[in-house]
C-alpha cells in the first residue's frame, strides 16, 4: 500500500479553514489525514518553505481539438495544465465541430483519459453548433459527462435562449458559463476603450459592452433561479453590478483571468498581437476595482483564460490576429507576483479562488484536502524566482506576452490522484 507524506509544508485548505505548517498523508490516491508523523513505510516529500494546497482547477481553458490541433490538443493542454499547477481543467469548446453532441463529449473524455495528465472536465455548448439560436441537447450532453454549458468566447446574445438554458440546466444542477459581452458595442474592437486606444487609433472595446451584458445576464439568472457563472469579467462596472446581485443572493458567480492583474492597456502601445485579448487589458481603475472584488468575494474565481494560438496566426496585423494568449503555465506566477507579492491579497484568498471556489462553481468533488477526497495536490514555492521561457511551454502554442518576464512563485509539484504528474526541474 503506497503512502506518501508531504512533510513540513504550509497546508492551506480553505474548505476546512486550515492554514498551518504540518504534514499531509496520501494513501491509495486519496487524502488520508493531516498532522501525521512520518513512518518508515512512507515515501516522504519535503515541502519545507512550500505551500501544500488542494490541486488548482482552471474553469476557463479553451480546448482547440478537434479542428484546431495546430494550436493545442487535449493532450498538450492537459500537460501544460500540470506544469502550471492545475490538477483539473474545465475544457470549454472552441472546436470544430463544437462540443454539442454526446459523441463530442465522449471524444474529449477519451482523449483526456489517454493523455493521462490532469483531470479534464468537458464543458459542452449551450446552443447547437454554438450558433446562439437553438438550445443544445443539454440533457444528453449532461448524461455523456458534460459538467457545465458554455458557448465559450461567443456570448449567448439571445436573452430568451439564455433564460431557457438557465431554467433547463436547473434540472441537472449544472451551471451555464457565459462571457458577458454585448458584441454590438465591441464589434471589431482590439483593445480597451480609453485614452490609450484614442491615441493608437485601435478600435475600442468599451467597458459598457461587458457591464450591460452582465446586468442583463444577472437579471435573467435572478428571474430563473438558475446557476450562472460570468466568464472572464474585467470591468469596475461589472464588479459593482455583481456585488449588488450577491447582496440579493442571486445565484451568480464570476471569474477573472490572471493576466488582467499583470498589465494595463498601456502595454498595447507596442501593438503586439500577443496582447490582443478578450477581454482586453483594462486601465488601472478597472484593475483596482477587480482586486477589491476579489478581496471581498465578489469575484469568486481566478482562471487562466488559456487561449492558445499557433504562431502563424499571430504573425499578422493586429486587427487580423485572433484574440488570446496561452495562460495555463503563467497564471499562478502572475497571480503570485501581482497579487500576493504586491501585497493585495493573501495565499488563502488565491487558493480559494483557484481551487475551492472553482470546484463549487463546477459542482465537482475537488478543491479540498479533506480525508477521503481525491489526492489532487499542488505544491507551490511562493518565493521561487523564475523567468518565463515560452520555448519551454508544454502547450503547443507560445503566444504569451510574458516571455522573458521574471515572476515570483510557481508550482513545483503537481499531484493527481496521489501520483506526481509534474515536478519542476530548475535546471
Amino acid at each position, binding site marked *: 500500500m503506497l503512502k506518501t507524506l508531504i512533510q513540513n509544508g504550509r497546508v492551506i485548505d480553505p474548505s476546512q479553514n486550515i492554514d498551518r505548517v504540518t504534514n499531509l498523508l496520501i494513501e491509495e490516491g486519496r487524502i488520508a489525514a493531516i498532522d501525521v508523523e512520518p513512518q518508515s513505510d512512507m515515501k516522504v516529500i519535503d515541502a519545507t518553505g512550500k505551500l501544500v494546497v488542494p490541486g488548482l482547477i482552471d474553469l476557463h481553458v479553451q480546448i482547440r481539438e478537434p479542428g484546431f490541433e495546430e494550436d493545442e490538443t487535449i493532450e498538450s493542454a492537459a500537460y501544460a495544465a500540470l506544469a502550471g499547477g492545475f490538477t483539473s481543467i474545465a475544457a470549454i469548446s472552441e472546436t470544430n465541430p463544437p462540443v454539442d453532441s454526446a459523441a463530442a463529449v465522449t471524444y474529449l473524455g477519451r482523449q483526456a483519459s489517454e493523455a493521462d495528465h490532469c483531470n479534464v472536465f468537458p464543458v459542452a455548448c449551450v446552443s447547437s453548433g454554438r450558433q446562439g439560436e437553438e438550445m443544445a441537447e443539454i440533457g444528453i450532453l449532461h448524461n455523456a459527462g458534460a459538467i457545465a454549458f458554455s458557448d465559450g468566447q461567443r456570448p449567448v446574445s439571445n436573452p430568451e435562449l439564455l433564460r431557457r438554458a438557465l431554467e433547463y440546466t436547473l434540472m441537472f444542477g449544472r451551471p451555464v458559463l457565459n462571457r458577458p459581452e454585448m458584441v454590438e458595442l465591441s*464589434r*471589431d474592437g482590439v483593445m480597451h476603450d*480609453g485614452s490609450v486606444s*484614442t*491615441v493608437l*487609433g485601435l478600435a475600442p472595446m468599451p467597458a459598457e459592452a461587458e457591464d450591460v451584458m452582465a446586468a442583463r445576464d444577472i437579471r435573467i439568472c435572478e428571474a430563473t433561479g438558475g446557476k450562472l457563472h460570468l466568464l472572464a469579467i474585467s470591468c469596475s462596472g461589472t464588479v459593482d453590478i455583481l456585488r449588488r446581485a450577491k447582496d440579493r443572493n442571486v445565484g451568480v458567480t464570476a471569474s477573472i483571468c490572471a493576466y488582467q492583474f499583470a498589465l494595463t492597456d498601456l502595454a498595447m502601445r507596442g*501593438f503586439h498581437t500577443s496582447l490582443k485579448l478578450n477581454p482586453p487589458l483594462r486601465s488601472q481603475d478597472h484593475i483596482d476595482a477587480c482586486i477589491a472584488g476579489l478581496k471581498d468575494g465578489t469575484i469568486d474565481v481566478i482562471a487562466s483564460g488559456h487561449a492558445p494560438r499557433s504562431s502563424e496566426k499571430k*504573425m499578422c496585423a*493586429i*486587427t487580423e490576429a485572433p484574440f488570446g494568449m496561452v495562460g495555463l503555465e503563467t497564471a499562478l506566477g502572475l497571480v503570485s507576483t501581482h497579487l500576493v507579492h504586491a501585497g493585495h491579497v493573501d495565499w488563502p484568498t488565491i487558493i480559494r479562488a483557484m481551487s475551492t471556489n472553482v470546484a463549487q462553481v463546477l459542482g465537482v468533488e475537488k478543491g479540498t484536502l479533506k480525508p477521503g477526497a481525491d489526492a489532487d495536490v499542488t505544491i507551490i514555492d511562493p518565493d521561487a524566482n523564475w523567468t518565463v521561457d515560452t520555448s519551454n511551454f508544454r502547450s503547443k502554442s507560445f503566444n504569451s506576452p510574458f516571455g522573458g518576464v521574471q515572476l515570483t512563485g510557481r508550482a513545483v509539484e503537481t499531484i493527481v490522484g496521489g501520483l506526481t504528474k509534474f515536478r519542476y526541474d530548475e535546471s
Partner: protein
Amino acid sequence: METPGFLEPFVGRWTKRHLLDLESLTSDEINLLLDVAQAFKESTQDCRHKLPLLTGRTSVNLFFEDSTRTRTSFSLAARRLGADVIEFSASSSSLSKGETLLDTAKTIQSMCIDTLVCRHKAPGTPQMLAENLDVSVINAGDGPHEHPTQGLLDILTIRQHRGDLSGKTVALVGDIAHSRTARSNIWGLQKLGAKVIVCGPSTLVSRRWEEYGVEVSHDLDAILPRCDVLNLLRIQFERQYTRPFPSVREYALLYAMDQKRMQRAKPDILIMAPGPINRGVEITPEVADGEHSVILHQVNNGLAVRMAAMWLLSAGRAS
C-alpha cells in the same frame, strides 16, 4: 556622390533608423526633417532635379491599402534621389496565397533592400515590421494611427506660409476618430508650440483628447474666429460601421467650410485638406479652390518631405 553643400549642415544629426510616428519624435527631430525638406525644395527647384544621393539603394513600397498620391509621392521621392523603387501590392503577393505578413516582408528584405515604405489598414503594422526586419521602415499610414509624412508636410506648409508655429492656433476639423493625419498633426503641431483644436461631431471627436492638451470643440462657428489654420479632414466612411451623424447633409451644414463661414474666419486664415477631399462635404469648391487654400502646396511639399525622410534615414543618418 558627395553630399551637396546644402545638405552638409544636416549630415549626422539624425539618429533614428525608422520613421514610424511623430508622437515619439522630439521637436528637434521634427524641425530637422522640416529643415531638410525645405532645403531640398529650395535647392532643387521644387524637387524637379534628380540628386543621385541614394544611388544603388533600393526602396520598396509595400502598400496593403489603395493609395495614389502617397505611393506616387514616395516613388518619386526615391527616384529623385537615385534609388531603385519596387512597387508591391498586397493583391498580387503571396499574402493572397496564405503567407503571413511577416514572412512576406522578410522575403522582400532578403532581396537586399534598404527602405521599406509601408501602408496598412491596421495600426502598428509598420512598427511590427520595424521590430522584426533589418531595414529602415517608413510608416506611410497605419490605419487610424499615424501618417507621419502627411503630418510633416502639413506642418511644413503652415511654416512656409505663417512662419514659426509657436502660438498659432490650428483646428483639425472632421473625422478625428478615424484619421491618422489628425494624430500625426496633433503630436507634430503641439511639439512645435502650436495650439491644436479638434472639432467635429461628438461621435467622431473624443473628449479624451483633452488629456493630451488638445482643445475639443463640437462647434466650428465658435472656434473659427480664433483659428490661424483650418485643416479639414475627410470623413472616412469606409472605416465606420454605423454612421456617426444623421446625414451628410447635416454634417455639411454643421462642419463644411463654405464662403459664409469664411466671413467669420481671420482674414489670413489658411485652408488645408490632406485629401482626397469630398467637395461639398468637408469643404465647398469655392473654398477648396479659393485664395486661402494651400491644398496643392501640401501635395507638392509631400515630395520634399519624403525625400528628406529617405535621405536622413539612409545617407544622412549618424553612423
